[in-house]
């Protein structure tokens, strides 16, 4: 690793101030599981790194009664995997946390890091999209909220200005008749990265689908929603045939590339398979 200055703010205010004073190429360090490999490989050579681990607020999870969930950006994947409140109503998010890296990595990797690194394969992005989460951002001009679908602007690019940081994700409670699921395909069971990831969230009312969300990872420069598939489900009684049709429609939202992790053909194939499976699971969970 090349040399850099390390700043250790103890509060959000200190961090915002440090960020404002730091050089433009400064990097925020949360779990380090994405940033450190990039620093080690020389892909990034910042003069200054600001450590977020000393800011308690970023590590808090609040699940108000029916008010939805607020997850600090420095909450670890391991916490999401195990947290009761997350598992109770936001299971797809817990499932995505459980799939990241290995336990040694999950104890470091953070929700905010996964989102702000903005890799197309980020596991936590599809559940957040499927749950209609909002990113709470702060900076010298104060706080702003951005729907997660608008947060990603390209491969490794987000709406964050150089002097801003992600504070938390605000996730509305999907309600008791809603169920979600996240699945991804990897050649190995652990210690791997998504070839394709799919999150589905179904909310039922009177035996019909009141709301459907399907979000895909690693099939486009940014995580995407499969809106045509969602529309095909909404207002309908969800049958295996309809799920099959929705899965076919989801493929149309994918614009995958071929790379070392998988060909575009295989990725489209996986979108169909994983959409079908996550919808099936989401339906069962919504009904349960």
């Amino acid at each position: 690793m090349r040399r850099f200055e390390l700043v250790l703010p103890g509060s959000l205010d200190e961090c915002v101030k440090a960020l404002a004073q730091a050089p433009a190429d400064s990097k925020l360090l949360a779990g380090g599981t994405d940033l450190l490999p990039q620093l080690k490989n020389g892909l990034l050579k910042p003069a200054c790194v600001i450590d977020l681990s000393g800011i308690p607020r970023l590590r808090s999870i609040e699940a108000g009664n029916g008010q939805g969930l607020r997850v600090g950006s420095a909450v670890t994947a391991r916490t999401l995997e195990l947290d009761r409140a997350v598992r109770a109503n936001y299971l797809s998010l817990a499932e995505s946390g459980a799939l990241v890296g290995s336990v040694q990595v999950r104890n470091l990797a953070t929700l905010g890091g996964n989102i702000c690194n903005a890799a197309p394969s980020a596991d936590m992005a599809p559940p957040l999209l499927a749950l209609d989460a909002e990113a709470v951002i702060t900076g010298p001009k104060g706080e702003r909220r951005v729907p997660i679908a608008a947060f990603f602007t390209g491969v490794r690019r987000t709406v964050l200005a150089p002097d801003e940081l992600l504070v938390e994700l605000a996730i509305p409670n999907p309600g008791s008749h809603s169920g979600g699921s996240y699945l991804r395909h990897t050649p190995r069971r652990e210690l791997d990265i998504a070839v394709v990831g799919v999150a589905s969230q179904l909310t039922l009312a009177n035996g019909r689908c009141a709301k459907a969300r399907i979000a895909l990872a690693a099939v486009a420069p940014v995580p995407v929603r499969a809106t045509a598939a969602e529309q095909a489900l909404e207002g309908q009684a969800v049958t295996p045939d309809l799920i099959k049709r929705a899965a076919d429609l989801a493929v149309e939202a994918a614009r995958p590339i071929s790379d070392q992790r998988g060909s575009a053909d295989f990725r489209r194939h996986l979108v169909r398979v994983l959409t079908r499976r996550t919808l099936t699971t989401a339906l069962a969970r919504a009904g349960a």
Partner: protein
Amino acid sequence: MAKQVLNFTVNDEPAEVLVQPWDTLLDALRERMGLTGPKEGCGTGDCGACTVHVDEKPVASCLLLAMQARGHSVRTIEGLGKPGALHPLQDAFVRHGVPQCGFCIPGVIMAAAALLAENPHPTEEEIRYGIAGNLCRCTGYTKMLAAITEAAGAPVGRRS
């Protein structure tokens, strides 16, 4: 870019050590403190050889800056047991003839110790996932499973 003072607890004893801002926790332990039990196999969190406990949780110490451990409690393989006073896992690893080249072993044992602390009677599946972040190229993991299972006091079972 001056060195920074890192105050933390290492293997149950308070420690104060000068580190560079860019030192990883692994660098600090190995190069500044002589604790060379944790190994660097990849430097990117993909092999588990550097596994230590921070506040009793297993982490890849190659992915953490040393200063991020300030105020925390770190345990390395050196703080688990010693020759002559081995931790049950270490004892089982020796008796089952697990180590070959030995490079992955400190990391595997630290991952297994964290697993057993959280889940004293894991299933075979839970053990497999508990050490899935630790690559081993010599053993094929089978003897590790037997040793960890024995150390946990559970009967050896097969996956059906």
